[in-house]
């Protein structure tokens, strides 16, 4: 691929080409398998970067990091200190810590008093998640006992409320689990279809990365985009059995407390 084409590819991926140029480049993409493979490779690289290096949630400032007495005791910029400034800074630091501490406790501890379920989760592919969960007994971490709770859980985790329509006989939704898969905050639905474990992974569409499943696993992945979310149903079954019962609903304010 020539340097000019590579540069055009980057501008195209950045969305910085003029509309006419963009159309021309799309045509070029269609007719050039090598260029198309490079575009696809770049998307895979970007997805890998997002998977591995997405920032964690903003934490509270740690107490030991506040300036102890002299805030510059360990690290200094070449600027003289003033006594009044020092006292003000110290009070400010203590006040900030208190506020941030209270705020972060409020954010991180849900109404149930549980800690962030995503904290410290290792990355797992869909295949790994499926295998590990089935070995562990396929028990969800969280059961939504009402439609409102189901909707609000999705809304708070992924920014879009979801509804599960009544399932046919033989299909049973067990509950939700959490995983670092498509992103560090993927929501997983655990279901059984006539006894067969089925996992539906849900995440934001912009974090979508097609799964790679090994032939030995015998697993299949079925994909749906629902609003701003992407859903993957993973199981040994040949067709999706849960995906089509999931739909987007409008979030209602009164559900937030459910």
């Amino acid at each position, binding site marked *: 691929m020539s340097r000019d084409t590579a540069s055009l590819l980057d501008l195209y991926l950045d969305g910085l080409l003029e509309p006419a140029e963009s159309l021309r480049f799309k045509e070029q993409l269609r007719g050039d398998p090598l260029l198309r493979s490079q575009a696809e490779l770049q998307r895979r690289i970007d997805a*890998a970067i997002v998977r591995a290096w997405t920032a964690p949630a903003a934490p509270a400032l740690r107490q030991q990091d506040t300036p102890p007495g002299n805030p510059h005791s360990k690290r200094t910029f070449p600027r003289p200190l003033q006594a009044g400034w020092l006292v003000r800074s110290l009070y400010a630091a203590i006040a900030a810590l208190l506020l941030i501490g209270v705020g972060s406790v409020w954010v991180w501890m849900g109404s149930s008093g549980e800690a962030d379920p995503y904290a410290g989760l290792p990355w797992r592919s869909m295949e790994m998640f499926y295998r590990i969960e089935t070995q562990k007994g396929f028990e969800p971490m969280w059961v939504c006992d009402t439609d409102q709770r189901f909707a609000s859980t999705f809304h708070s985790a992924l920014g879009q409320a979801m509804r599960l329509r009544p399932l046919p006989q033989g299909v049973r939704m067990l509950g939700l689990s959490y995983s670092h898969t498509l992103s560090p905050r993927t929501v997983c639905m655990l279901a059984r279809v006539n006894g067969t474990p089925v996992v539906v992974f849900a995440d934001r569409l912009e974090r979508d990365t097609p799964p790679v499943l090994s032939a030995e696993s015998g697993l299949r992945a079925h994909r749906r985009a629902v609003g701003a979310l992407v859903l993957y149903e993973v199981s040994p079954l040949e067709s999706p059995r849960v995906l089509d019962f999931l739909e987007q609903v409008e979030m209602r304010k009164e559900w937030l407390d459910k």
Partner: protein
Amino acid sequence: MTQEDQSDGGTAASSAPTEFAARFRECYRALWAVAVAIVRDRTTAEDVVQDAAALALGKLDQFKQGTSFRAWMTQMVRFVALNHARRLKKRRGESTGLSMDSLVSHPPTSRQPATLARSGDLPPDQAWFDDRVAAALASLGETARSCLLLRTLEHLEYAEIAELLGIPEGTAMSHVHRARAHLREQLSEHALAPARKGQGT
């Protein structure tokens, strides 16, 4: 100038610690991306951002109203991260968690992925690919890596990246494009291998 930058003026974090906390949370992800681009380790990056926040808290009176809080904090993060990287260079060796360093020191040379040792699980092909990406990232320069991560993870405009890192906009774009080309070159051999399994509907 971005919406965030414009709102930095006036009541920004120059003197109010609560304002500082809110601003810090808003830009935490970008700060972390800059930190991890320099120290190349997730856990260390979190420590660096924490240290930088403590440093910035002690220097609130130096923040100039009307300027970008995020850019100011980024300079703090870079200062702390570069210091940390220099110290680490002296006593090289250990690293914890997911680290680009460990991968560039021992780049995966076969289809045996680096994650195997970490998790004990048999990872799919994707894990191997991810490790190769991390190794290729580690071979980039610090500024190029920062530009690329800010663009890819935070979807920042080139003008925003330029402001955060104190470089011209064209340079930021050039860093990103060259970094992408480098990564594609490094990964193309694997990516073109016809080893894709699995399917979707």
